[in-house]
């Protein structure tokens, strides 16, 4: 009998069926991967397993007994711990306070015993070979990657029978990601079940014993990992044969320089970066996470203080705020990293979101023209094929891929011909990914200049014309043509000296 058995699980949100009868089973001592596009139901399933959400129908059995947790506490008590993409750390508490939150060792007066807390923390970190963490450090001082690791420690602190990892490696640099993958095997070796969600097929192949594929809120299939090919997996995820994820790449770059960056420095994170972006070019930025890519984009967009020289379409400019960056055709637009926190007004309609950056385009003498606004909205909804019931629908209710399209649309309406995209396909389903890549190449063909950052090597290799590899806040090397390979990017990202 399997450790975890899910039968016919149903979950509805109002009129929308998130799970329409899901079957799933997993054993102790294995690493079980969940695959599927966004909106396929993986997230909902693990939220239910973790007690964050209640299901509407179907049955779950854990270790042979019925399981229907009313809250995360009960789930943890029954032995299930989840590490979600959305971190549950408290910034003003320390690392160890977060790890043992609500489970601290107490004295007779009811106060927390500091020494015991420290000892437990160090024991846990040692046992699983955690990358170095300072237990007394306040979490708000940690980087995103460090927080992800603390989150994992927190999951393990309850000694769970089942550990669920939802995209646990997406924010981690390569070395820490590797550690996580090894950790899953160690935990499986201890007899636990690790449920692993990732969009990175390479990782899944590396560690999973079995996989279950979801589509549209239902289980499509379950396989032994070494008995199924990638093509089958992808087609089962999509429900159709994917002709090609990456668009055909044609040379669309002209000689004209769209953006010239000279000796750019951003705070302590980016040092003396110089490069040029040409009209019609798709320029990728790569490298290990946390090496200054985010700060580079923010600096160019005016969201961070910079030193250095910029020229746009040949004219020197100084950009001190996003407002100065978004000046119409000669401007610079950014589709930011965090679409929910930086890109969208979630409670406002699709229409209001699309037009918020270009109010001037449909305002005359300060007054807005609803007709002109509607025209702009229609233009973008049609062009990007944004799936929403109406343009009045709140942006927060759209799927991840469609939300990303709205952010795209907002920036496209500004008519800026230089587009910067920060990890545009993160958390986006495979189908929409393909649309986004095609869009990037189409825009380049129309004369746009595109700069994009991706944490996914194949994307950089297949979509970008050239790749700037960043390391330690500087450009380690520029790769193009035959040199633009995954291994090439990786070597440049990681090693000091390059082969000539």
């Amino acid at each position, binding site marked *: 009998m399997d450790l975890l058995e899910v039968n016919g699980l149903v979950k509805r949100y109002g009129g929308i069926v998130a799970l329409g009868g899901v079957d799933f089973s997993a054993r102790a001592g294995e690493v079980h991967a969940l695959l599927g596009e966004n909106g396929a139901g993986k997230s909902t399933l693990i939220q239910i397993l973790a007690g964050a959400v209640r299901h509407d129908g179907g049955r779950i059995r854990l270790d042979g007994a019925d399981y229907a947790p009313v809250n995360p506490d009960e789930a943890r008590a029954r032995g299930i711990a989840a590490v979600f993409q959305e971190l549950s750390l*408290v910034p003003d508490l320390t690392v160890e306070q977060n790890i043992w939150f609500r489970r601290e060792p107490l004295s007779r007066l009811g106060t927390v015993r500091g020494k015991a807390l420290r000892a437990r923390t160090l024991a846990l970190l040692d046992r699983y070979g955690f990358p*170095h963490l300072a237990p007394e450090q*306040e979490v708000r001082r940690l980087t995103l990657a460090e927080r992800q690791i603390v989150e994992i420690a927190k999951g393990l602190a309850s000694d769970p029978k089942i550990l669920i990892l939802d995209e646990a490696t997406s924010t981690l640099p390569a070395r*820490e990601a590797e550690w996580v993958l090894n950790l899953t095997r160690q935990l499986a070796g201890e007899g636990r079940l690790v449920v692993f969600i990732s969009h*990175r097929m*390479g990782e899944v192949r590396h560690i999973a014993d079995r996989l279950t594929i979801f589509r549209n809120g239902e289980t499509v299939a379950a396989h032994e990992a070494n008995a199924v090919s990638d093509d089958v997996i992808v087609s089962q995820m999509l429900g159709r044969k994917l002709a090609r994820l990456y668009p055909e790449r044609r040379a669309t770059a002209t000689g004209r320089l769209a953006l010239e960056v000279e000796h750019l420095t951003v705070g302590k994170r980016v040092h003396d970066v110089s490069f040029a972006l040409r009209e019609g070019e798709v320029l990728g930025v790569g490298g290990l996470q*946390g090496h200054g890519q985010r700060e580079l984009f923010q600096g160019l967009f005016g969201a961070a203080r910079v030193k250095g020289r910029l020229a746009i379409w040949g004219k020197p400019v100084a950009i001190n705020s996003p407002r100065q960056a978004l000046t119409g055709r000669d401007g610079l637009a950014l589709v930011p990293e965090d679409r929910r926190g930086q890109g969208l007004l979630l409670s406002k309609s699709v229409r209001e979101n699309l037009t918020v950056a270009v109010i001037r385009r449909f305002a005359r003498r300060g007054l807005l023209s609803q007709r002109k606004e509607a025209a702009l909205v229609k233009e973008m909804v049609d062009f990007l094929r944004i799936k929403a019931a109406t343009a009045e629908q709140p942006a927060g209710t759209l799927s991840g891929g469609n939300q990303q399209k709205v952010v795209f649309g907002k920036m496209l309406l500004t008519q800026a011909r230089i587009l910067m995209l920060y990890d545009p396909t993160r958390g986006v389903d495979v189908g929409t990914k393909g649309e986004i890549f095609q869009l990037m190449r189409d825009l380049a063909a129309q004369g746009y200049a595109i700069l994009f950052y991706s944490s996914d090597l194949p994307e950089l290799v297949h979509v970008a014309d050239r790749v700037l590899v960043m390391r330690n806040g500087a450009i380690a090397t520029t790769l193009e043509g035959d040199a633009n390979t995954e291994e090439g990017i990786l070597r440049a990202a*990681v090693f000091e000296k390059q082969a000539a």
Partner: protein
Amino acid sequence: MSERGVNMSSMTADSGIDRPPSARPARPAMDLRALLLDHAPFLVACLMLVVIVAVYGSLQSGVFSLDELNLDTTATLTLLLAATGQTIVLMRGGIDLSIGGMVSFGTVLAATRFGGDPGSVILWSAIILAIGFAVGAVNGLLISTLKLQPFLITLATWSILSGASLIVLPTDGGQVPAWWQDFGSAAWLGLASPVWLLILLLVLWYWFRSTRLGIAIKATGSNERSAFLSGVSLTRINLVTYGLSGLFAAAAALYLTTQTGAGSPTIGKDYILPSVAAAVIGGVSLFGGRGSLAGTAVGAFILTIIGNLVFVLHISSYWQPVAQGVILLIAVLASSLAEKAARGQDQ
């Protein structure tokens, strides 16, 4: 088509990998600068208090004495008690405007119900404290179940409590027993009882914040979503937090009657914003999750001693609110500068 992800297994762990600052072993346990920046608001408040007391002491004799400490603590304690409750609520990330109503209500109930008999006084004191906690708990419940903003809910309950106060006692008046009013002057070991009360408060605080509940309140204020995902019952936290706020407001009312000897249906509104100001000056963050009672105490003392200073400088007493406002702004600006500097350090 194969979508290979990152495959790092060929890259061994220690082959001279050059790692960015963010992935290196964490910084050596907190250097002095980080420590200072973290506590900057509190330190700035202490500095301001020192300066104010120094100036005051240079103009008036006998300031650096136990007598002065007793006097000032006696004068500050009402505000401090109210601000204690407010501190807890602010740490939770909320705000409690209803303490104004509760303080008024507490005084009018005391002034009309105490009578002269010690038994009745004790009974009614207990009832008033219980009412304080209960009303606060109702605040917390409304905030949780209706999922509404604390500002509005406590604004409404403030109005309700103020109205109730007016009904019980339409104008200032009433009476409390003379021995009750002697509380302020009672002393032990040279320290007046308000000072002992202050010490007790601080001790209680340091105990409370090391309990699971205290940590949970701080966590909820720091990031409500994280606390919720970690299994904290927001309803329970709100109930306790606002309940305690009401309790302390009731305590402030009781103490106030030992000072004024009477009840007043409108006195409470003078404590609402100063209680927030005292906490903010002392380093409590309006966004939740940071702060301490020691800071609030410093803030409360600053606000009252300013009054002494103004008096001693022989300037119009109307300068007091001006000074209080300016100090409040200085404290907030200092804390936001420190925050920026701390963040800059981490970049």
